[in-house]
């Protein structure tokens, strides 16, 4: 239900608009921790990344925070500490989660504690992944499509991650069953306004991860997409709504994952 981007796109096409990079003096804010934690139903999916905000004019490289204490706990209070495998990356390749179970994350960075919990939803799988030719504002574009069957009962939330030739695209694809509960659903992973060299072509290898996420994590991605990607025209940009307590940015998600690959015909 997000049409504002579409209008905006249309308006820009038809008016003599002009885009330029500007130099904007931005204030420097105190650093804030960023925690990105996941546990999935697959091995190797349990990973916690800890970093810090950077100033706008710094480079974009990930600068991990080392030396944190990171642990994951299941419903039966079985706690596992995740070792730091490289700076800021804490992972345990043996842990797998079970759909329906709630997991808790505890992080301690220099004496400051952060906590979160997330319930892994029921796993819903992709029935198919295929490519269609879609006419997007007059241009024919190759668009990946996903079909799946949403289970009865509202509250299912999904996120899709698109890879083209092994490179993750920075588009946020999220959907819930608010308006489509219990139906065979089909999702188009549109790529609006991409440069010509980023368009999908015949022979490209497309990969899609389907993640079933909890409502809080859906809200995180929804609010991130609406307010923090820097390229929207929302009235008031804001930090996404996090499910981590203690004042960190980021999220903790217990999610199921399924991957499909296809070559573009």
């Amino acid at each position, binding site marked *: 239900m997000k049409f504002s981007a579409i*209008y905006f796109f249309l*308006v820009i096409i038809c008016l003599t608009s002009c885009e*330029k990079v500007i130099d904007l003096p931005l204030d420097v804010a105190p650093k804030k921790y960023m925690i990105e934690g996941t546990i999935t139903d697959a091995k190797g999916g349990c990973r916690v990344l800890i970093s810090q*905000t950077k*100033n706008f004019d710094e480079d974009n490289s990930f600068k991990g925070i080392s030396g944190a204490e990171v642990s994951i706990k299941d419903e039966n209070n079985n706690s596992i500490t995740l070792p730091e495998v490289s700076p800021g990356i804490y992972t345990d390749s043996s842990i797998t989660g079970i759909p329906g179970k709630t997991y808790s994350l505890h992080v301690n960075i220099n004496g400051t504690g952060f906590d979160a919990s997330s319930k892994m939803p029921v796993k819903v799988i992709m029935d198919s992944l295929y490519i269609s030719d879609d006419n997007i504002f007059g241009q024919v574009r190759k668009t990946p499509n996903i079909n799946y069957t949403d289970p009865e009962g509202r509250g299912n939330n999904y996120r899709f991650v698109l890879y083209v030739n092994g490179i993750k695209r920075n588009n946020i694809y999220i959907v819930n069953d608010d308006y489509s509960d219990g139906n065979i659903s089909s999702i188009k992973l549109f790529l609006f306004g991409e440069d010509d060299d980023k368009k999908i072509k015949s022979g490209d290898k497309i990969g899609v991860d389907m993640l079933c996420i909890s409502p809080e994590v859906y809200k995180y991605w929804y609010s991130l997409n609406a*307010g923090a*990607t*820097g390229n929207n025209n929302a009235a008031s940009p804001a*930090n996404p709504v996090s499910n981590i307590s203690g004042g960190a940015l980021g999220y903790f998600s217990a999610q199921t994952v399924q991957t499909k690959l296809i070559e573009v015909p």
Partner: protein
Amino acid sequence: MIKAIYLAFILLGSAAVSYAQQKFTISGTIRSQRTGETLIGATIRSGDAGTFSNDYGFFSLTLEKGKYNIEASAIGMQAQNIPVTLDKNITLSIALKDEQKTLDNITIIASSKSRSLSSPQMGIERLTAKEIKNIPALLGERDVLKTVQLLPGIKSAGDGNSGFYVRGGAADQNLILLDEATVYNASHLLGFFSTFNSDAIKDITVYKGGMPAQYGGRLSSVLDIKMNDGNNQDYSVSGGIGLISAKLNVEGPIQKDKSSFLVTGRRTYADLFLKLAKDSSLRDNVLNFYDLNAKLNYSIGSKDRIFLSGYFGKDKLAAGETFGLDWGNATGTFRWNHIFSNKLFSNTSAIFSNYDYNINIRSGANQFDIFSQIRDWNLKQEFQWYLNNRNNIRFGFNTIYHIIRPGEVRPSTDKSSINEALLQKRYSWENAIYATNTWKATDKLHITYGLRLTLFSILGKGDFYTITPDGEVSDTLSYKKGQFVKTYVNPEPRLAASYQLNTVSSVKASYVRNVQNLHLISNSTTSSPTDKWVASTNIIKPEISDLFAVGYYRNFSDNKYELTIETYYKTMQHQIDYRDGANIYINSDAIETQLLFGKGRAYGIEWQFKKKTGKLTGWLSYTLSKTEKKINGISNNNWYNARQDRTHDIALVLSYQLNKKWTLSANWVFYTGNAVTFPAGKYKVDDQVVFYYTERNGYRMPDYHRLDIGATWLLKQKKRFSSELNFSLYNAYGRENAYTITFRESKDDPEKTEAVQLALFKFIPSISYNFKF
């Protein structure tokens, strides 16, 4: 209701002064001789005693027995002197001739000769279609709402946008009336054009403060637009062809002097731009709008007149087969004027108003339509009682039944992956009674005092909620059809006084309270047709504003120049904002779960210097102001700058009559950029750079300034046929004004982030041809 009116009578009557000498009343109607159109706000005076014609051209002036020379004058018309011997009540039917323009003797009165120094009314601006005509416009589309934005205290919602903010209020806090019907979405084409076709418009009155008691329902302003009635003397056809639209206006008598009709249409061909676009395959897209204004009026004898007017407008936008959106307003007004006596004028209006939008999605298995609507049934009764020379009373009532359909999703095929989802219809009943008196306490001191009492009832059928501080529904209460959920009762006092210091200057002060029960929920920066109107509920309280203002007014050089200074302080209660991560399109009736509430304050000072007559006319206005909000849950519950907070706002508007053929015009605007939220840093989520924010609206957009120039070339002016060419250049020096500033990974170096400014309009020339016969 009747009781209340009696009560109002008694209250107001107490201000009446006793009759000492024999007095008689001159009443009647003032019109244009050429078209038969009644004139609004025309001056009828004799020496110091005088009055203005009302919205229907009616006037009533009571004087002592004697001989008088009555002078009748109006903007753009030749003044007329009528000698009368007043030894009984008399009725005058005044017809003024159009102003003559001759080469060597140009007298142009660009606006009413003198802003009334004596009237307690403050914060009022009046424009006629004639005044708007010469102001250069974007793509040559003359636009009422964009002209209004050049007035002090009224700010544009953005480059080329027809939305506006008045004295710190939000865009939805303006009551926009077309022949008394509320227009819920006054913009076309995503805000770039207004729904008002200037060819069909007679008079525009803007109240940015001190609203008289007959108006209510919005916090910040009233924009009262009156359509032409239609020429009852002769048939006439006029029209115009511009860059983006063509217009045609047909009017004429049905029975000469008694009845007339008017039909005005406008249709854009913006689609053609898409067809001319570089990308040839864009032609499947649709982007257009049209409007139709129609009016009939009929005089039944000398005491009664009826009017039927309507507006219908529609926008269409489509991207091939996959996406379609149309939206539009429809209004209808039936009015009956009745002159009970030479002192008592009555108007009864039955009004219908509708706004809706429809979205069609046909994309793969996602096949569905979305529909939303707001509809009003409205009855207004007003009496104007010209009690005596010292007291002029207005009283009446207004009752409106609102039906809101917040959103209805319907699958368009059986195989659609979308389910039917119909949000509950919301019903409400808004009632108001009011009475106001303008009392000339002394020759120098005039006072208007009045009261408007609003009763807003929320009606079933429907579910209403209680909500936790975290925005979760904790309880649901179901109401039956027609059951009263809650009634909000709000008295709205209206007070204004003027004191005339001498013949050329006066001071005024006013206090006004306004209450708003319909709220627009919008989370985009530009106006969007899918913005949501919601009525007050048990949780969404009526918005209340209190506005205090004082002003100084001075005329110079025999009314050639005019200086106006007004300063104001406004407080606003129960203002609405969004929770972080709010989704206003959720499939839930409890929209309140997405909202936060707080308050606002605004203050400022406005200067306007105007030259009203001569070859060169125009004005310079400057506003210095501040607007802040304090919302529970935003910016740590501290005061922060509202988005529309702009410190400085300057407008210079000039029009120069070069000779009989050419009129040149220019306007220049400057304002401080809006308050905006920019990132304080960045971080990575799932390997993607996103931005970190620390404070709401802590930054400013760059300053905005722009010069527009225009010229009108009168090709022919004969009795039966006239035509002209209009040229304009919008943004003449090509300033790249920032429309948006966005942030992204650099295209050249993905390891860097950059700020990108988008500017929309740069050197937009246009030409249009207008004719009349």
